[in-house]
């Protein structure tokens, strides 16, 4: 191999190295750009969701309270509606600061109300309405 050929190989090697470095740089830039875009999009979604009052942390609260409620306590809830509501509000397990419900979520309120008692509903379907007029009877000397 003569000098010219050796110089040529060195230049070719340098060109490949530069090209490889450029490609790596382009890839790194694309990855960074994609990450930034994804990050911005995610934050955008979260921002919009929070701004419109659909905080996912708040929306999951009733389900969590329901899971922790034992059957016996559930039966006693109609008489303790206030206490049950307070119980749910005092659960910042996610670590997020929950804004007052009246400002953030106007509609979750019914979800925290005591569960309707199923037995009276079943009775109401099974038996006639108590308000219905029954035909009178007459008592006489037996």
């Amino acid at each position, binding site marked *: 191999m003569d000098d010219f050929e050796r110089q040529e190989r060195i230049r070719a090697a340098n060109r490949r190295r530069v090209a490889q470095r450029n490609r790596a740089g382009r890839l790194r830039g694309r990855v960074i750009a994609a990450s930034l875009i994804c990050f911005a999009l995610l934050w955008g979604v979260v921002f919009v969701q929070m701004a419109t009052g659909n905080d996912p942390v708040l929306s999951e609260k009733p389900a969590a309270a329901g899971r922790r409620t034992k059957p016996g306590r559930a039966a006693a809830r109609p008489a303790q509606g206030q206490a049950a509501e307070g119980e749910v509000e005092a659960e910042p397990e996610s670590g997020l600061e929950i804004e007052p419900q009246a400002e953030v979520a106007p509609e979750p309120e019914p979800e925290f109300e005591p569960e309707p008692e199923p037995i009276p509903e079943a*009775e109401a379907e099974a038996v006639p309405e108590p308000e219905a007029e029954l*035909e009178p009877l007459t008592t006489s000397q037996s």
Partner: protein
Amino acid sequence: MSESRIEFECFGGCVEVRAGGGAGAPAALERARARLLDAHRRLSRFDPGSELSRLNRDQRCEVPASPLLRQLAVAIAEAGERSGGLVDGTLLREIERAGYADSLPQGRRPTPPPAVAPSGPAGPRDRADWAALRVDQRAGTVIRPPGVQIDGGGLAKGMLADLLGADLAGFGSFAVDCCGDLRLGGRAGAERRVMVDDPGGGPPVGELRLRAGGVATSGISRRSWRRAGGRPGHQIIDPRSGEPAFTGVLQATAVAPTALLAEVYAKAALLAGPEEAPAWLPFGGVLVLAGGTVETVPASTELPQPVPA
């Protein structure tokens, strides 16, 4: 609310049974009819072949008896105990001596109340045969001194109204009218009006309202007659004198948790006289006094309400 109903003649009068608010009401009413007619065959004192008549003729101290007859014996003993002997179901001889030996024709119109001066309140008999009445449920026998005769009368009607009421308790509403002794109720807890019959045959003299319980009326005008010598007679006997009672109360209607208890209260109120009668109506009632005065007695005790199923 629609109710199925059935009417038939039984116990010397008209019986009506109603039920609604549930499936199978017509079949339940037919069963009620069969049960009442069977009870009538067993407990009629006008039928010499009835179980009651055979018991009254039996000279043994301990006589085998069907569960229904044993239940009647228990009811008579309890009535005597609750009323302090005023309501005595062992006065069959006295009733027959007063002229009520045969069944009165059905459908007769109420006779005017007998115009007899009140002779004061009735009282218990010195020898209380009802207290000697015993039942051996294990042996299936009725135990009483030989010669003691029992008469179902209104007590049997109240007792049977209660038995049928228990059979019909699963319906939304039910009512049993055993010739004027009522048992009513139902799971729906609906209120029902009960009109109080006029002893003279006129329009109702009162109205009661209740969701569940018993109502009974006892009086001296419907089953009354003229005895020998023109004296008026009727079926309500003063245990102390053994004669028809004229206490100044012509008719007493009582409300109670059961029809049997209502029958005991009504009869006791009638026998106790106008002064003491209200005390025998703790769940309320209506009194018709001699001269036609109608007195409504308010309840001093709350009637137990049915527990929702």
